[in-house]
């Protein structure tokens, strides 16, 4: 017979059963000694009374021990399932899937609406005041009502206010976090209901962690999965919107790349994809028919006709799941984009000098003079101390041997405040010179420590080649669309061997694994290190057609502000803001117009604003006062949850095979299924009654024995 305990730790009090025995023993030692003359009379009495007394004492002691035992057991709250349920002793945890796919609304009702209907059916089987926990699951569980006595009015109100979460379901994480919520329910029988659309992507192949969490949950609760019906599983989504290329200054044309994907089971006509600048459509592309699972990249162009923060939206026509039909991005467009090129070999004014090649790559002589390019200024390295760095957006050090320490510190401050720095290696760049200067404490800028010069065999043919397996990074992303042969021709004869710093990241490398292009964020800015420079004796990359693309993209990348990086729901917005002190309160207003107050704090020595987890996709404005926003952040949904395909009950049963989970099909009556499962009750009241009865018996016995004596 199994008697699960609700407070098993109370069994630690079991030794208390020995207390009556202990008291008896202590009393035996606490005797009064009487010198007595009439021993013979006493002895005669004891001959027949002592055995009776021992029996009486033993009986009383056993009764007292039994009383303590019953009390200990009662507080441990044993339960039984073999007795029929005579009272509503069931505690319920209801976990509602609130992920993005639950917003899917093929008709008048969404999947979440269907889920709420099923929850109402479950709640009909719960008696008032029984413990119920209501949880909405997304990337993590949100507890709506915790271990609350069931009150139909209150629960109905919570259900009516339930909103989808615009984020994918993290099933294994949610199951793990449900464990303590289930454990804290004080009831002989616990039930955990998962009300979900059973998305194929999540439920088809349950992770080992999810299976283990399920097994652990099943040890303390009856698990039931209630899938909801859905009339359709079709969904189209814009999964990506990125600035592909383009200099972010007025007059330039920005090229965006969007991706439209069909997550449904059948081919869908995606129609047109529009690019909006603010509320105005600036570009439109016909996407057409997409096969199931097909993801189509779409190029969109936006003329940057004015300076400031631009809100870009790529939008598809409405479908059943609208939350992922729009994708947002923010561009910070300047009137001018100024680049300072510091020449380490000012004596070499030839067109093939490294600095000339860099300048040509940044601002090529084009036929169309109207094309907006960065304004590039060239100064010799000796003029660096006199240069006002704040006048520039990006500084490029080309083969600069060294610089005064105060310049290095100034350069670091420039980057920390949002500037971009490109350091290009060359014959003058030595580990013990510029390498030491830009890795020293106080002016540490480089993403890696310079170690030594590496020379290849010296011939063009035998130079080292680039690793063409490029990472998915905004800087090198444009190169991924170039023909492989183009980059394949690039050769590297010399480069500086480096030792990567913790903050550093490799963006380009040789096939040998030696880094060529590295990145390091410093404050609000970034630093790029070319370990092979632009000297033609070091590589032929500078005369490769990809070089200008890379350099211009580097300037664009470095000149972008932190707030231009979009955030995915439910990540918080973390924003370094210049000119605001720690402790200053700012306001962050979401697409719904609601404003939250955020206090600026220190993170890694920098003053940043960090909001709570984001919930709504769209543009979030940051206000320091009632004036115009000082920054705007684009927040997008995580389209990992856009796959609206769901498992049918049979597939779900297969997915849960071997796990102690019961699937209550969508067409089955929940109340009937639940009533069939339930049984058992809590025994603490019975035990308390038994203890009281035994106490009464003990009192009567003690009194009777006492009276018999007198």
């Amino acid at each position: 017979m199994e008697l699960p305990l609700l407070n098993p730790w109370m069994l630690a009090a079991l030794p208390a059963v020995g207390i009556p025995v202990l008291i008896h023993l202590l009393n035996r030692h606490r005797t009064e000694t009487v010198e007595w003359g009439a021993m013979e009379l006493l002895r005669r009495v004891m001959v027949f009374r002592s055995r009776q007394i021992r029996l009486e004492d033993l009986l009383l002691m056993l009764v007292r021990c039994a009383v303590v035992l019953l009390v200990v057991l009662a507080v441990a709250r044993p339960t039984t399932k073999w007795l029929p349920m005579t009272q509503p002793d069931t505690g319920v945890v209801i976990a509602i899937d609130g992920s993005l796919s639950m917003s899917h609304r093929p008709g008048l009702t969404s999947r979440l609406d269907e889920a709420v209907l099923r929850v109402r059916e479950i709640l009909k089987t719960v008696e008032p005041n029984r413990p119920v926990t209501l949880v909405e699951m997304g990337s993590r569980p949100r507890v709506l009502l915790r271990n609350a006595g069931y009150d139909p009015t209150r629960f109905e109100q919570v259900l009516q206010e339930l909103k989808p979460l615009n984020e994918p379901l993290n099933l294994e994480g949610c199951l793990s976090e449900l464990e303590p919520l289930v454990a804290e329910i004080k009831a002989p029988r616990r039930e955990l209901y998962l009300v979900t659309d059973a998305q194929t992507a999540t439920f088809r192949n349950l992770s080992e962690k999810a299976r283990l969490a399920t097994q652990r949950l099943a040890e303390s609760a009856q698990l039931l999965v209630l899938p909801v019906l859905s009339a359709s599983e079709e969904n189209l989504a814009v999964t990506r919107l990125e600035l592909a290329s383009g200099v972010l200054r007025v007059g330039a044309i920005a090229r965006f790349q969007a991706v439209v994907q069909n997550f449904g089971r059948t081919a869908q006509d995606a129609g047109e994809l529009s690019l909006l600048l603010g509320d105005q459509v600036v570009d439109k592309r016909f996407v057409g028919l997409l096969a199931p699972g097909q993801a189509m990249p779409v190029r969109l162009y936006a003329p940057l006709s004015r300076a400031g923060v631009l809100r870009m939206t790529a939008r598809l026509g409405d479908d059943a799941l609208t939350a992922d039909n729009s994708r947002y991005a923010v561009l910070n467009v300047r009137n001018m984009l100024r680049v300072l090129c510091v020449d380490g070999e000012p004596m070499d004014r030839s067109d093939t000098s490294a600095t000339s090649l860099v300048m040509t790559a940044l601002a090529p002589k084009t036929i169309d003079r109207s094309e907006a390019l960065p304004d590039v200024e060239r100064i010799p390295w000796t003029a660096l101390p006199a240069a006002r760095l704040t006048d520039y957006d990006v500084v490029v050090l080309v083969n600069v041997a060294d610089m005064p320490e105060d310049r290095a510190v100034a350069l670091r401050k420039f980057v920390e405040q949002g500037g971009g720095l490109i350091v290009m290696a060359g014959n003058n760049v030595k580990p013990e010179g510029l390498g030491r200067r830009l890795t020293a404490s106080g002016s540490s800028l480089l993403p890696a420590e310079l170690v030594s010069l590496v020379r290849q065999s010296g011939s063009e043919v035998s130079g080292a080649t680039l690793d063409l397996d490029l990472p998915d990074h905004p800087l090198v992303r444009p190169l991924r669309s170039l023909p492989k042969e183009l980059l394949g021709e690039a050769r590297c004869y010399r480069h500086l061997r480096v030792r990567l710093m913790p903050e550093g990241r490799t963006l380009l490398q040789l096939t040998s694994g030696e880094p060529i292009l590295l990145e390091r964020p410093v404050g609000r800015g970034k630093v790029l290190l070319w370990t092979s420079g632009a000297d033609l004796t070091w590589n032929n990359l500078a005369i490769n057609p990809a070089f200008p693309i890379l350099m211009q993209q580097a300037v664009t990348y470095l000149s972008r502000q932190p707030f231009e990086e979009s955030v995915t729901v439910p990540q918080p917005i973390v924003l370094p803001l210049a000119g605001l002190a720690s402790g200053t309160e700012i306001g962050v207003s979401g697409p719904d117009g609601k404003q939250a107050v955020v206090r600026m704090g220190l993170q890694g020595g920098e003053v940043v604003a960090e909001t709570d987890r984001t919930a709504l996709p769209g543009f979030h404005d940051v206000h320091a006062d009632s004036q115009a926003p000082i920054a705007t952040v684009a927040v997008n949904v995580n389209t990992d949850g856009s796959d609206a395909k769901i498992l049918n009950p049979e597939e779900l049963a297969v997915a849960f095979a071997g796990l102690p989970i019961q699937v209550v099909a969508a067409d089955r009556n929940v109340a009937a299924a639940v009533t069939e499962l339930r049984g058992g009750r809590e025994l603490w009241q019975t035990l308390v009654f038994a203890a009281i009865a035994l106490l009464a018996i003990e009192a009567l016995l003690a009194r009777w024995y006492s009276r018999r004596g007198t």
Partner: protein
Amino acid sequence: MPIRGPKLRYLDPQVLERIGSLPLAARQVVEGLRVGMHKSPRRGFSTEFAHHRPYVAGDAVRHVDWRVYGRTERYYVKLYDAETNFDAYLLLDASSSMRYGSTKHSKLEYAKFMAASLAYLILAQRDSVGLAVFDSRLRSFVPPGGTQGMIATIERKLLETVPEPRTDVAALLHEIAQRIKRRSLVMLFSDLFGSVDELIKGLDHLAFGGHNITVFHTLDPHELELPFNGTCRFVGLEGEAEITTQPKRIRAAYMKEVSDFTAQVRRACERNHADYVLVNTSHPLEVVLSEYLLRRNRLTAGGTRLER
């Protein structure tokens, strides 16, 4: 008789004052050497009028000399019968069990007070008194004497008496019965803890010798009622094995046992024409003694005297 000399410990003037006017009469004939107030078994001796003595309660009215009353307005009794004095033997149990006492005095002390007071009374009425102190054996024996110095002798012996273990009252009674040649008054002061059957045999032996026997069954109130609470460890005063128990739980059974015990002794005394006095040491001594003397005198005067 006034108390002279140094103050005697076991004679309490208050007690003596209370009992001083009460004569101790032999309930049966006794043998004496001198003329006394007790009927002698010897016929023809002092059959004529001898003297008057003050009337005491319980005397037969027919013995009142009304002539003397007419002259003096006081009651005097004329003594016609042949009367003699008696020898009284005070047998004091000094065993360890007599050491027990929950009141001001232990049983032994209380018995000493009783013995001394009765000795004084006996000597005051010109009878002879002796003392035997015993525990497991006869410790000391003072032959009967009628002189005033006897009270001091007895007092000294009582003072010297200390409790010793083990009581064998029955053996002691046999020994006393052999020692006493004349029919005498025998007073036993003891708690009588021991074999009741043996005790009865000892009483039988004494009674066979024609002695007047009085048993002062001396018990402490705690021994009568066992009023203890909690758990008690009873340690025998005479070396018996310890008993640990909760007295409250056995009180009723104990009291019944005590009742049976005293009833058994009482029956044995009645069978041997001995007086039985259950002495509760919590009661005042003068009350115990006066009640005893009054009762005894009432019985003697009421014709219940038994002659052999």
